[in-house]
């Protein structure tokens, strides 16, 4: 079975929509078990391990994050935040057999109470075809102003 460019592009759009609609359980199912969600702290950062990142989370941490969002004593989510992605058509950078790389420019809005913040970012997805299904092997999100002083970013850009 082969994957078309359009299928890769649709996958990226579907993922963004799941996050915006809060369908996190479905979103977690997109991930391969040893994947990492990386959000660098430094511009063009190369090392996720020995310097600080904004996020570098394995599936356990991502599950924890999602579980927490649904918790009854998650005070920073009373009331809950909402988010919204606007994405450009993803670039398909690599198609090698069962593995693929896409780059997507996006604007991310997160809002809670009277505050709203806008982040411009680039998402790089490593995708893999496993048992006929596309999955996320790794995801890297570079915020354009990654070194600015942020307030809370509570959901998943």
């Amino acid at each position, binding site marked *: 079975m082969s994957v078309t460019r359009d299928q890769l592009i649709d996958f990226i759009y579907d993922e963004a929509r799941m996050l915006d609609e809060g369908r996190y359980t479905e979103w977690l199912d997109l991930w391969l078990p040893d994947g990492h969600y990386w*959000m660098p*702290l*430094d511009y063009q950062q190369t090392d996720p*391990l*020995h*310097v*600080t*990142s*904004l*996020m*570098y989370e*394995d599936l*356990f*941490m991502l*599950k*924890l*994050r999602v*579980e*927490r969002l649904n*918790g009854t*004593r*998650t*005070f*920073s*989510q009373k009331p809950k935040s909402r988010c919204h992605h606007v994405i450009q058509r993803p670039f398909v950078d690599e198609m090698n057999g069962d593995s693929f790389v896409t780059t997507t420019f996006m604007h991310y809005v997160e809002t809670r109470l009277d505050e709203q913040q806008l982040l411009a970012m680039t998402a790089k997805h490593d995708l893999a075809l496993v048992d006929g299904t596309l999955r996320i092997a790794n995801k890297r999100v570079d915020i354009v102003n990654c*070194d*600015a*002083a*942020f*307030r*809370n*970013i*509570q959901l998943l850009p």
Partner: protein
Amino acid sequence: MGKYAGDPAAAAALVEGHQVHRDVYIDPDVFRLEMKHVFANAWVFVGHESQTPQKGDYFATSIGDQPVIQVRHSTGDIHVLYNRCPHKGTKIVIDRQGNTGKFFRCPYHAWSFKTDGCLLAIPLKKGYADTGLDQTEGAKGMKAVGDVRNYRGFIFARLAEEGISFEDFFGDSLSSLDNMVDRSPAGRLEVAGPPLRYMHHCNWKMLVENQTDTCHPMVAHESSAGTAVKLYEELDLPEDAPKPPAMEIIAPFMSPYEFFENMGIRTWPNGHGHTGVNHSIHSNYSQIPGYFEAMVESYGAERAKAILDENRHNTVYFPNIMIKGPIQQLRIFIPLAANRTLVESYIYRLVDAPEELTARTAMYNRMINAPTSIVGHDDLEMYERAQEGLEADGLEWVNIQRLRTGEEDFSEEAVENGTTERQMRNQFDAWVKFMTRNVPAREAAE
């Protein structure tokens, strides 16, 4: 004009032994007085020497609301200068760090200065002939802060020209910094990467107080640490299976009250103190292969064990930093306004130790202190709710009475139950002391 403007004695009266008036957290005049008195008279952390390793390297930061530059001079020593041209006031550097070469040059009129601040040259200098420029402060160049000390790589400065000495200010509290540095087999730390920068809409003192608040983790962090424990138990892994890193780092926040009571809190004069006298949430981290051996090589077995057995959790250095020895981390709470604070969380690499230690430190930092961290979200929510809640007119005082038994003597070191609020009272004792340092004794007593 507010009721405390220019009146540090009036502001100091807002602190009583067991309670603090809300204006200490919300009044802009009190904030201005803190900048002018507390931050000028105390020794304040500036940066680490590894942020300016080469001659001409500089690092721009602030002490309270004062813009300053930490710079490595041509002789190799580190100077701290006000980031202001003595001519028209232009900030000399605007990027956070860089190398200026042999001199600073003001981008406005090209006045230039040696890296110790001395005036080097002025274009068209003849225009100043017979004007008496040499009699002015401007002719001396960029102004240096009152005093600077490099203590084992950590740069501290006192803005005031005269005042308490470095040794008298810190006293035995330096043992925490010593322990953090001694954990390097080389006895040396280096900054690892840029700091996390996290904007808080609350007063800086709320953050500092929270560093030794041991009654909040199991409550405020139930959503993160409690959920981590629950999720882990659901995995139903065998006893000897390696724990997910989240469990090693986040789960101890859910330790019961008894754990924190027995942890102990030590206070030192001038507002310094630490949690984790007996044990801490860092005590049970897994061993990193090769690290203990490297320590024994440097220090001998007995001393190496003594260094690593110290479990100091959070050490607060008054007024505005906290260090975590066991994971080489420093957090600085930079006051921007009465209701606005920038938190920067730095991590350090232990020179000559395995890099896995740096990896754990980086992991801790992003899991706990990032604007994207679920644990950080728990805390920020509480601070900002407090900042807003203190506007309520029905009550005016903040209670800091826990485990207080009458008048306390903060001029002596003390070790108490780990859930005491003594360290918060200790900080306020120092706050009053440095706030009123320049007030004539008679006036202060009134």
